[in-house]
């Protein structure tokens, strides 16, 4: 009997050892690869940067999407006619080395770089630029959504800003506008309007997002959905000595904690979306360094004006008085943010600093509620985003503070959350009473915040509060066509006053998103728009 048992044990042991050997065998295969990459980094033979981030790209054809994760990769494959500054949104030469605007603001003439080639070997020239713009202008809102909101529509539409794009010579492009558009050059600098190879997208326009061909410092290699995107050095890159890396792998690791752990263990070299509470951990670790992304965002609580009682301005103002922004920032941004009073961040020149933010004052809030006819408060749903965003590291916790703030003025809020895509879809249909959300600017212009998020034109797309003010709309359209910077800023100052008074949002915070990387990374500059160009990045 005992012998029998022993035998059984022995067999079990052997079986489990064989199984273990098999599984570790598989593991070794993949580990071997990453080890090889890491070893390459230090020896300087083949330099691979693994960039960990919260989500996968939607498409690598940037003109078709609006999400930041798609742009992050596309910014390294495609180049725009005009570039932003390294860490700001000033205009710098890109594929166009110089440009000129006519006095009436209707004609822009761009001189292009010569000798630039697309990754497929075809030449970059004025004809290519024209073909790119033709492609977008002949699209529709489903295919090129961002083109519509930046250039007012498509070919034949009333609001379409661009009259024509023509090639004057091989390397001269002329844009003829129907009406002046102040942020026109900034729009050209947005990653969405990176220039692709006409040969590639003419062959397969829909498949271009899977096989992107641009002029950028890196070439597309491989995309494993929901796992990683690999790009490699463009040996023919027109800027001397760039890029310095041989390969970049963008890895999706949704959980912030898991991503930081991957960084600490060396599985990745650079991590986006660092929790503010982990600053100290990273500071204490000699092998890591912290990067700050210059702030160009707003996190807010939207109040859907089509839902009772938020149609009442007094209720919305009461909410603005009720919420303790500083407490939220101290606790859940760990101070890596500043309290917001306007819908645009202070780094934008049009920011109206003369506006007095609503004081945190529960008593005042109660009075306003009573005046609006709700002395005993009411019940509502408070929507909290389920995922960490650059403008709000932890929506659920922020919601819990707001829930308590509202309870103090007699409003009973139930915190509700959905899966991220559902959350956005339902909120955009106006189904939320109040919802947490935010926005990161794509070109550093006030238009890209106020018009995109609060104008009646954008109800259903980015204006989730359904706030619609005719006076504001007129000012915003006027500001779009106004070319003089000072007059324009005055218009936006007025717009911010109207918004402040109508209070469709409770502006919460302008955060400073954090990234962390291994200590030997050099030349990495986090861009405020979230599209980081990695051509200068290197390992020590």
């Amino acid at each position, binding site marked *: 009997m005992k012998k029998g048992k022993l035998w059984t044990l022995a067999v079990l042991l052997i079986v489990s050892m064989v199984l273990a050997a098999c599984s570790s065998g598989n593991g070794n295969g993949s580990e071997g690869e990453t080890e090889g990459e890491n070893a390459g980094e230090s020896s300087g033979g083949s330099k691979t940067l693994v960039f960990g981030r919260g989500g996968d790209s939607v498409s690598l054809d940037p003109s078709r999407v609006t999400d930041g994760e798609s742009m992050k990769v596309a910014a390294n494959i495609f180049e725009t006619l005009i570039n932003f500054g390294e860490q700001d949104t000033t205009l710098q030469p890109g594929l166009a080395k110089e440009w000129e605007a006519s006095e009436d603001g209707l004609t822009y003439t761009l001189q292009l770089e010569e000798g630039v080639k697309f990754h497929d070997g075809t030449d970059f020239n004025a004809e290519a630029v024209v073909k790119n713009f033709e492609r977008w202008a002949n699209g529709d809102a489903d295919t090129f959504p961002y083109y519509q909101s930046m250039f007012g529509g498509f070919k034949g539409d009333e609001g379409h800003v661009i009259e024509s794009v023509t090639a004057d010579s091989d390397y001269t492009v002329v844009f003829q506008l129907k009406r002046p558009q102040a942020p026109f050059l900034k729009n050209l600098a947005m990653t969405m309007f990176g220039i692709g190879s006409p040969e590639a997208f003419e062959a397969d326009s829909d498949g271009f997002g899977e096989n992107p061909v641009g002029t950028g410092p890196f070439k597309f290699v491989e995309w494993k959905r929901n796992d990683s995107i690999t790009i490699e050095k463009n040996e023919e890159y027109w800027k001397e000595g760039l890029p310095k890396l041989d390969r970049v792998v963008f890895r999706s690791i949704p959980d912030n904690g898991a991503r930081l752990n991957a960084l600490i263990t060396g599985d990745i070299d650079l991590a986006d979306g660092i929790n503010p509470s982990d600053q100290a951990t990273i500071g204490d670790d000699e092998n890591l360094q912290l990067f700050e992304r210059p702030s160009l965002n707003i996190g807010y609580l939207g109040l859907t004006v089509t839902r009772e009682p938020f149609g009442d301005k007094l209720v919305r103002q009461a909410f603005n008085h009720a919420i303790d922004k500083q*407490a939220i920032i101290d606790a*859940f941004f760990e101070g890596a943010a500043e309290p917001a009073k306007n819908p645009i961040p202070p780094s934008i020149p049009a920011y109206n600093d003369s506006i007095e933010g609503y004081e945190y004052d529960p008593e005042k809030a109660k009075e306003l509620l009573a005046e609006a006819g709700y002395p005993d408060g009411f019940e509502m749903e408070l929507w909290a985003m389920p995922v960490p965003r650059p403008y709000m590291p932890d929506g*659920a*916790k922020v*919601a819990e503070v707001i829930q308590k703030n509202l*309870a103090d003025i007699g409003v009973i809020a*139930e915190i509700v959350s959905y899966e991220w895509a559902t959350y956005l879809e339902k909120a955009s249909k106006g189904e939320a009473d109040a919802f947490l959300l935010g926005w990161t600017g794509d070109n550093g212009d006030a238009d890209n915040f106020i018009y995109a998020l609060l104008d009646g034109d954008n109800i259903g797309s980015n204006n989730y509060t359904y706030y619609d003010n005719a006076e504001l709309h007129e000012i915003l359209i006027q500001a779009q066509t106004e070319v003089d910077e000072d007059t324009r800023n005055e218009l936006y100052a007025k717009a911010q006053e109207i918004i402040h008074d109508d209070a469709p949002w409770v502006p919460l915070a302008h955060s400073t998103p954090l990234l962390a990387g291994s200590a030997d990374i050099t030349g990495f500059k986090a861009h405020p728009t979230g599209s980081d160009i990695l051509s200068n990045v290197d390992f020590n």
Partner: protein
Amino acid sequence: MSETVTQQIPREPEEKVAGPWREAWTGFRKSKAALFGAVIVLMFVLLAFAGPLIAPEGINEQDMSKRLMAPSAEHWFGTDDFGRDILSRVIHGARISLWVGFFSVIGSVIVGSLLGIIAGYYGRWVDTIISRLFDIMLAFPSILLAIAIVSVLGPSLQNALIAIAVINVPNFGRLIRSRVLSIKQDEYIMAAKGIGMKDTRILFSHILPNSMAPVIVQGTLAVATAILEAAALGFLGLGAQAPAPEWGKMLSDARNYLRDAPWTMIFPGLAIMLTVLGFNLMGDGLRDALDPKMKS
């Protein structure tokens, strides 16, 4: 003649009923572990009832200037990331966990017993249908089934309780069914049938009381599992909603602070562990005390 018979009947059950219960209590008292478990359970029950009186603070008194403070004389269990007193929240949490534990088990016992009795007593196609239904439910990992139910009903404590009750129904149903199957062959049931007693009376006055012992044992153990499942659902955000101080939810909220403020996690974790341990020890003791085979 007939008078003597009617006099004997009330006397007999008195002895029969009082006897086994007293015997069980004596058996239960002998096991130190079981007593220890009972003491823990009693303590948490007291906490649940007296919670608001004992707790130094309410459940949602946020104070950002006091966030993540280590345990001290002022805050015995420290404070969480909203500056709330963890001791107070753990005490209030006892009420939620025990409430879910007891009521979900009572729900599954009632539904499970009913289905089990019907299946066992009537047999044939009724039995087949009910038993296959139980098999289907048992084929799912229980927490998965609970998650599915909560996602249909929407996340809340109430729905978590319902989900936990539903997933435990087949356990009780099968237990009762097997008891009924053996009891219904006993002579006294045959006799009852023989004198023409109605089915409902046989079921509820004879079969049900005689099948209760294993249900009590299983029920006590199931409370422990139910508390764990409620905590798991709370951890996943599918159970109690903010700001309710549910232990599982407290654990999940504390996740980010594991490194810097471990007390936010330790105390709710300990509370879960202790209650579950208490119910398990008590359940084991009850099983030993109530199982007729263990006596001999």
